[in-house]
């Protein structure tokens, strides 16, 4: 049975990204291995430590920076994470100083909001209703 084990977000600063994704969003660091001038740096959900790893991928490939910038400017999320209670998570993150380009909004079966991850991406958080 094939599975998703790693997915990634491109980040313009791995150290800053690790701080944001762990201290602010609440993921846990799983792997941190030096690779050349960068790191193979992954985080996981605290609830699913054997689950899918999120690679905080260094932006070493020039054309990817153009793509990331275009998504950012259009407010398009690079990826989406699930939360149990979006409204309370939104309030917690705002309290921590996180900036949202889209506050919680209902859209059919979900509520979604879009935040700035401080390392180049819009990230969507969502809750199924």
């Amino acid at each position, binding site marked *: *049975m094939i599975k998703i084990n790693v997915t990634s977000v491109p980040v313009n600063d791995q150290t800053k990204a690790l701080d944001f994704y762990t201290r602010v969003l609440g993921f846990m660091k799983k792997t941190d291995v030096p690779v050349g001038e960068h790191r193979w740096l992954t985080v996981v959900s605290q609830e699913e430590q054997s689950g899918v790893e999120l690679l905080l991928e260094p932006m070493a490939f020039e054309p990817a920076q153009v793509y990331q910038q275009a998504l950012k400017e*259009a*407010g*398009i*999320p690079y990826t989406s994470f699930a939360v149990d209670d979006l409204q309370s998570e939104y309030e917690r993150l705002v309290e921590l100083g996180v*900036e949202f*380009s*889209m506050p919680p*909004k209902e*859209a*059919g*079966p979900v509520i*979604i909001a*879009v935040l700035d991850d401080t390392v180049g991406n*819009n990230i969507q958080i969502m809750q*199924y*209703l």
Partner: protein
Amino acid sequence: MPNTSFYETEIDRLYSEMPMRPEQYARVRQSKALMEEYYGDKIELDDLAQSAFMSRFHYGRTFQRMYGLTPRIFLRDLRIAKAKALIRQGISITQVCADVGYESLPTFSAVFKKCTGQTPKQYQLSHKSNLE
């Protein structure tokens, strides 16, 4: 960001063009909430459809359009996720089987294996060995 982003504008447009009315969304959500509360009981598709004020066929299609999977598969996955959590807590497999709404242990084991790749016993053992 002071102005509405391209993304937000698109979300608004797409949502407004969806064929379902807001009250239909609310009814299907309510049926999903029923499954989340009563997954340990016997739940029939007809009851869920009735709770959403829809025919069985229309309900199944609408649920799938909203959540990307049929109500039957949603309930199965929910039960197996709950079962995994209970097994990890050290509850016996027979008890877990009953707690998540399966009347037959062989059926529960087969479904569990299909969803996770392991039988409940294998899952229980692998979790125990991880703890040791």
